[in-house]
């Protein structure tokens, strides 16, 4: 082999190797997150199987799995999931919609901000769970009080996120809009909206996270169906596997809905100049 040929071969090999390594790491990286929970679950399973623990209060993964299957077979899991999901959807929709309108108004208009923001900040200081007794008195123990509580939980992160984002839009970009003589409406559509979108999406995601937190509080305060009801039912009837199954269901659906928002927003945020490690 000539010297040139050797040089080419030497340069080609690492490139090929690199592409294989990058493909492998693309598959391996997400898997890395499973290492810790799977190891812990397997260890617990082995400990119970070996009889070192009865696993009565902390059931092993296999028992939780079969509880999951049983709940799904009777249709209870689907029904409870659907009920909880619809409560979160209604509360999130309501809270996010009101927060978007109020946040946009206070972000855009200093007068409205001076008028509304101090009161809203005052309300924010109240732990939202403290509203529960009042909501039950006002709205009864059924859906309305639960949805309202979730909406209150969702409202604050979205409101604060959007108002802050509008206030921190780069003045220099707004000036570009002015130099091109954009109308107020065009300024909002072509400059403000795209500029606040990344922060708005983050605030929606943290709002949704709080929505899932508050649906549990709402269902714990009295419900005859829903994943929160499964938790109470498991506690009262001494069925820890049912409690863990409900917690796992919360985790899966919570993560899935968060992922849906991120996925829906991704095409609009491709321009972002952020650090991408993947």
């Amino acid at each position, binding site marked *: 082999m000539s010297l040139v040929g050797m040089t080419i071969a030497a340069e080609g090999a690492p490139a090929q190797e690199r592409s294989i390594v990058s493909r492998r790491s693309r598959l391996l990286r997400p898997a890395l997150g499973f290492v810790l929970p799977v190891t812990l679950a397997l260890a617990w399973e082995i400990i119970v199987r070996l009889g070192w623990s009865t696993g009565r209060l902390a059931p092993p993964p296999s028992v939780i799995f079969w509880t999951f299957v049983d709940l799904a077979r009777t249709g209870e899991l689907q029904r409870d999931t659907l009920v909880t999901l619809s409560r979160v959807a209604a509360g999130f929709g309501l809270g996010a919609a009101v927060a978007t309108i109020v946040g946009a108004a206070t972000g855009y208009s200093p007068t409205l901000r001076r008028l509304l923001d101090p009161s809203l900040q005052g309300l924010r200081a109240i732990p939202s769970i403290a509203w529960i007794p009042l909501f039950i008195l006002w709205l009864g123990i059924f859906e309305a009080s639960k949805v309202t509580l979730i909406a209150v939980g969702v409202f604050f992160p979205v409101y604060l996120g959007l108002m802050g984002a509008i206030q921190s839009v780069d003045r220099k970009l707004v*000036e*570009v809009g002015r130099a091109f*003589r954009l109308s107020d409406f065009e300024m909002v559509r072509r400059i403000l909206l795209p500029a606040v979108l990344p922060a708005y999406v983050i605030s929606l995601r943290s709002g949704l996270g709080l929505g899932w937190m508050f649906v549990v509080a709402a269902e714990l305060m009295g419900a005859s169906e829903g994943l929160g009801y499964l938790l109470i039912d498991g506690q009262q009837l001494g069925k820890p596997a049912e409690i863990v199954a409900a917690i796992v269901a919360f985790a899966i659906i919570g993560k899935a809905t968060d992922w849906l928002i991120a996925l829906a927003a991704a095409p609009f945020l491709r321009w972002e100049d952020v650090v991408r490690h993947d």
Partner: protein
Amino acid sequence: MLVLDRVGKTYPNGVHALGGVSFEVELGEILAVIGGSGCGKSTLLRAIAGLDPPSEGAVVLDGERIGAPHAKIGIIFQEPRLLPWLRVADNVGFGLAEQPKAARAQRVAAALKRVGLADKANVWPRELSGGQAQRVAIARALVPRPEVLLLDEPFSALDAFTRTDLQDHLLDLWADAKPTLLLVTHDVDEAIVLADRIMVMRPRPGRIFDEIAVDLPRPRDRQSAAFDFVKRRVLAGLDRSLNRAPSSAEDEQKAEAGAAMWW
């Protein structure tokens, strides 16, 4: 014709930034306004752009008083200020929203080709170098075919090589439609390379101190004796504008060292 009639600006906090600036600029003329930091040259440019209307006097373009951004006036800022959520082509076409899509695409493509970035039409602004981004900003300002183009220290953030390159390129683009160019700068070389006339400003409040005609044929040789002569004249004017005694030895040193950046 662009006419400034005793244009003054006092900010609400009492700062008297501009004190009665008057001059006229013919259509197609290139005028450079030069001066140290805080002499009010950017305030003057913003008043002409209609972004910060003057508190006294008037800016009049073709008989029309300018109090807000105007269709006939384009502006290029110190930073490219591209909208990061729009691809390069959409940034260039930003001021053509009312045009039919096909006509817009055609003009954008032509402008991008003209600034040598036809292959960058579909990239995001974050993928451009500083010089490329400023070229896009130039294309964006020129595409609506303004009668007056204002430039606020447009190349000051770029490296020396890119700056020289873009100065030549700007002249090249200017020759297409010959709009009036009004350039604010603190770079003496840049003012002499580009302008037909140089206005020296003095600060507190900002006003015109000196006016120097640059009668050199284009393209201008930055190394020529004639260029050097004008440069000394401008530097001396700048020194006098700050009540500094012009020292010929110092001037020579500045010229020799190429220290034409006058802050």
